[in-house]
């Protein structure tokens, strides 16, 4: 029997009972839809993570100071640091083979109360981290300058404000360009009762950012020295982070080994990415298992449908055997019908999974926009191998489910089958 005849006969038999075939495929549709959606989420997120980390640079490292155990605090309520990130260390790192840049970073305490004064307006503000060489966290949207520069000048004295902050002060978007070069005052109010004003020049205005404004590292140091009443703040505490960009992944690995041996706390972005990827795979597998469970149930449905088909077509099977159909051909016919049920469900499930991913992606981005979270990305990616894999898997589920009913059909005695009413 030619394969084409086998396929055509199987397909035509399936469409005899369109409603039953459609209902039987529902289980497969749900299972494949779940698997495709979950796996596409994993692909998308990993793709976005890799892209974001690539932008930062996988050959980058983050170095943190080492603190003592949690019971040791100093006069200012901060944990004692045993390994500091000093300016000397930064210079030492910069001089090492394979190092491109070393950028320091300072946190401002969340308890710091800062009031911005501009043209008679005043408002409380929060500050954004300033990592000139990095866009920040993965999925973060780098701020875009509406006027002036995106990052404050590294030497200090300049400040970058967000559009939202200026809008809250009553400035329209068209007016903000005129603010570049304008003087602005930040007034710190310490819990001890005193306050201090710091003057800055507006260097840039950006469309979105975490927080209201950005300051350079030297300016942050000025604020911290006053806040903690400690002119030797840097010598006592060092930097909060050093962001090191190396020439290659190999250089980053070597640097990581050396710094770890020196006792520093180091994060390699590749390590973070690998860790995150591993975590995602676990989550993906768990979620995909839900789809697998649905497919298991669907396979029982397919087997049931095919067993019913064998009962209903007993006499027909007898006729086919009487006119020369071999048991193996009968078996192949039923197995193929079951495989096609799986395949049909796989096609529908893949399409619906793709659509669901598109819809969920849109919803997520809308929620980000509503929550004013500056994140973008495509979190659901259906690759060609996912499509192929889903279809093959669905057909395989159908095929396996059809084995038992097909064996029953093949074993029917022609004479008994012909007499079946």
């Amino acid at each position, binding site marked *: *029997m*030619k394969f084409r005849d086998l396929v055509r006969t199987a397909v035509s038999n399936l469409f005899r009972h369109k409603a039953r075939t459609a209902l039987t495929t529902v289980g497969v549709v749900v299972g494949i839809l779940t698997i495709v959606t979950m796996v596409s989420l994993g692909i998308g997120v990993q793709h976005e993570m890799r892209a974001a980390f690539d932008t930062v640079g996988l050959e980058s490292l983050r170095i943190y100071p080492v603190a003592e155990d949690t019971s040791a605090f100093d006069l200012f309520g901060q944990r004692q640091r045993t390994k500091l990130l000093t300016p000397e260390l930064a210079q030492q790192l910069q001089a090492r083979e394979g190092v491109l840049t070393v950028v320091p970073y300072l946190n401002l305490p969340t308890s710091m109360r800062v009031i911005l004064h501009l043209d008679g307006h005043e408002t409380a503000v929060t500050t954004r981290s300033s990592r000139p060489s990095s866009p920040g966290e993965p999925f973060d949207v780098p701020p875009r300058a509406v006027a002036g520069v995106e990052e404050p000048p590294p030497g200090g004295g300049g400040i970058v404000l967000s559009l939202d902050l200026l809008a809250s002060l009553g400035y329209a978007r068209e007016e903000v360009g005129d603010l570049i070069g304008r003087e602005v005052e930040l007034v710190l109010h310490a819990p001890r009762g005193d306050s201090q004003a710091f003057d800055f020049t507006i260097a840039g205005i950006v469309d979105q950012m975490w927080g209201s404004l950005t300051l350079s590292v030297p300016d942050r140091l000025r604020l911290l020295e006053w806040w903690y009443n400690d002119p030797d703040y840097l010598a006592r505490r060092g930097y909060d982070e050093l962001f090191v960009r190396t020439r290659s992944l190999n250089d980053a690995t070597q640097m990581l080994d050396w710094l770890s041996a020196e006792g520093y706390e180091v994060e390699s972005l590749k390590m973070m990415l690998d860790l995150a990827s591993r975590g995602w795979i676990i989550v993906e597998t768990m979620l995909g298992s839900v789809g697998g469970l649905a497919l298991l149930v669907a396979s029982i449905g397919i087997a049931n449908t095919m067993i019913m088909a064998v009962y209903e077509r007993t006499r027909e099977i007898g*006729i086919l055997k*009487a006119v*020369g159909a071999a048991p193996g051909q009968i078996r192949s016919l039923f197995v193929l019908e079951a495989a096609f049920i799986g395949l049909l469900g796989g096609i529908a499930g893949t399409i619906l999974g793709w659509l669901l991913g598109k819809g969920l992606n849109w919803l997520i981005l809308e929620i980000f926009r509503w929550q004013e979270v500056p994140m973008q990305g495509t979190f659901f990616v259906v690759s060609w191998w996912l499509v192929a894999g889903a279809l093959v898997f669905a057909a395989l589920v159908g095929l396996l489910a059809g084995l038992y009913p097909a064996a029953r059909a093949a074993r029917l005695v*022609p*004479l008994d089958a*012909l007499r079946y009413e």
Partner: protein
Amino acid sequence: MTTHGRAAIRAVQLTRTFTLGETEIHALRGIDLQVAVGEFVALVGPSGSGKSTFLNLVGGLDRPTSGELWVDGVELSASKERALTEHRRQRVGFVFQSFNLLPLLTALENVALPLMFVGVSERERLARARSLLEQVGLADRVAHRPTQLSGGEQQRVAIARALVGRPSIILADEPTGNIDTATGSEIMALLRRLNQEQRVTLLVVTHDLEAAGFANRVVRLRDGQIEAGA
């Protein structure tokens, strides 16, 4: 399988016993019968005489309990399923009382169906089917489904289907059982014509003596044994 002689059908002490619970039913009790190549034989007898059982054994739809059965020179009694499938494909064609056509296929597709299982191309099998439908007088009904055909027309389609594989033997089990007398005579006349024109051996089981009259020889069975005509 083993080969023997040139008789189309040769049964030697053929028996077939069925077991129903604790009861044994002796459908055939030592049948000795020969049917020559090209002969038209009618098997007659009351219900339960074993005539359909004999036909099913000759057609490879059943296996004998004991004895020898040679069909077209091939001994069937010890044949395995694969050999019986080949036997049904190559040597025999069936015509059933209830026609046994597939309702969702057209007349043309029903006739062509046996050739699909032996790998004949679609073009060739439809061409052969069309030719046979012309021979049985249904050239203008090829696209009709069985529900759109009369009983006599359906039986003609069944006869065409039985012939499509070019078998040496046609086995017909009560071919006029489900149709009216006049149509039944037409069917028997058609079978006789095909027997004479194509030299195909014909074994017809019937309880209708008028239908049996079309045959060259009538073999009468009773209680699983040949009463007359062996």
